[in-house]
């Protein structure tokens, strides 16, 4: 158990040091407004957990950060660069943002090692030997060195998700987005994935995590954000929000999940 993480209240930093800065973000799907003017901030080295009932817009918010969803209006800055700018090189910015999906999305027609190397070679232009070296280091980090020749179909859910994390890390991103990374896993496999994420946090990785794992949020998160109905209702130090929620809907939600 680490104790460092329950710690210091977040001091808002100015935009130049923010890893992620979301301003007045609106997102419509058709006529349905799923994000209703979100202001959201992740500092460098912070771990921010986003919780909320399904349909609250938390995954959409995360997917807007690397433009998998195009915001209807508002601005998003990644390390000071506006990714929502029509002239922004979105591909290049994305290569600085690692993303982990609920459903893993490993490439099934490639071995684990190839999964970790393909974007390094095709996007970063790394040589085969260099990319393999980085891939092997990241596989070792998630404890799956022996699986480098396996195909994704032969991995368990927990192994798949750890490979997916290693794949994202192999691009050496400045920050990581996690979209309910443990929601598709059998309960006994959740721990391994959370451990990898904890290790990553303790190395100082900037992380935005959409999750239902309140234990992880309390233990590892620097900030907890509660969303419902497309707005942020409450945010603060995880232990405080979880122990003493101010908003009545946060209280209702937490009483159901805790």
């Amino acid at each position, binding site marked *: 158990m680490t104790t460092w993480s329950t710690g210091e209240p977040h001091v808002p930093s100015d935009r130049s040091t923010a890893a992620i800065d979301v301003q007045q973000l609106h997102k419509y799907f058709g006529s349905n407004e799923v994000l209703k003017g979100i202001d959201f901030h992740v500092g460098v080295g912070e771990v921010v957990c986003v919780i909320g009932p399904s349909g609250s817009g938390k995954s959409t918010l995360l997917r807007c950060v690397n433009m998998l969803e195009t915001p209807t209006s508002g601005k998003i800055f990644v390390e000071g660069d506006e990714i929502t700018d029509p002239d922004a090189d979105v*591909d290049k910015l994305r290569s600085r943002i690692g993303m982990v999906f609920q459903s893993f999305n490993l490439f099934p027609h490639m071995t684990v090692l190839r999964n970790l190397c393909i974007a390094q070679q095709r996007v970063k232009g790394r040589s085969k030997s260099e990319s393999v070296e980085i891939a092997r280091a990241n596989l070792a980090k998630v404890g799956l060195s022996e699986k480098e020749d396996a195909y994704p179909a032969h991995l368990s859910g927990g192994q798949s998700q750890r490979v997916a994390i290693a794949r994202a890390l192999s691009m050496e991103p400045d920050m990581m987005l996690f979209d309910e990374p443990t929601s598709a896993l059998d309960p006994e496999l959740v721990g391994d994935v959370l451990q990898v994420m904890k290790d990553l946090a303790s190395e100082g990785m900037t992380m935005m995590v959409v999750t239902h794992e309140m234990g992880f949020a309390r233990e590892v998160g620097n900030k907890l954000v509660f969303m419902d109905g497309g707005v942020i209702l409450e945010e603060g130090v995880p232990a405080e929000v979880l122990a003493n929620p101010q908003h009545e809907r946060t209280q209702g939600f937490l009483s159901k999940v805790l």
Partner: protein
Amino acid sequence: MALSKRKRAAYLRYAQYALIVLVVAVIAFAADWASLRDSFFKPDLVREQFPDILKTALKNTIIYTACGFVFGLLLGLVLALMRLSSIGPWRWLSTAIIELFRGLPALVVFLALGPGFSRAFPDYEIPGGGLGVATLALGLVGGAYMAETIRAGIQAVPKGQMEAARSLGMSHSRAMISIVIPQAFRIILPPLTNELILLTKDSSLIYILGLSLDEYDLTKWGREGMNSAANLTPIIVVGLCYLLITVPLSIVVRRMEAKSERAR
């Protein structure tokens, strides 16, 4: 007559076996085997076909089909990507081409590109002679069908694959080439092989082009042989040669389908 349900089913099955045996027996006794063999399977005429039928006709049929299939596959891929494009005119153009060549009989396409083309543009000719026309005609017909198959295959790849590739910084086209299209082709390998079987048979339409002897495909070879020998044996041998190509392909398709069923 209180037969149990199971007993009745058993008797019904025996009755069907008996019927089949009866039909086979009647055919076997009633048929004039000697005259059948003389008009359909004369041994010396069979022997006469070899080895030239393999060296010329079978080889040509395979070449025409292979060239048509490769061109059709490339054309189909381009048409499928146009069909999925966000640019309207590409979609319309591709839809028009697909509907045109899917709707026309292959024979009409051969006529248009062979005799039709040389009459319409007497100063030009399609490069490659008979092979060129066959490649173009079979490619257009096959490509129109394969375009829809490939489009369906691309759309069958889960959306998360494109998202994962994009999240790693790949461009849309890079993700298509490295991630989506290879998976799409795995999905559509069985229907593509079926298309190859269909094209093998459609390649017989090349007979309308007026070929020289060394350009003969199987069907043309068989027709000429049939006419000169006044006997059906050559066409039977040709039929067996087609089966020599298509049956192994069918087996491959069935294997692939069984395999993908297991993988599910």
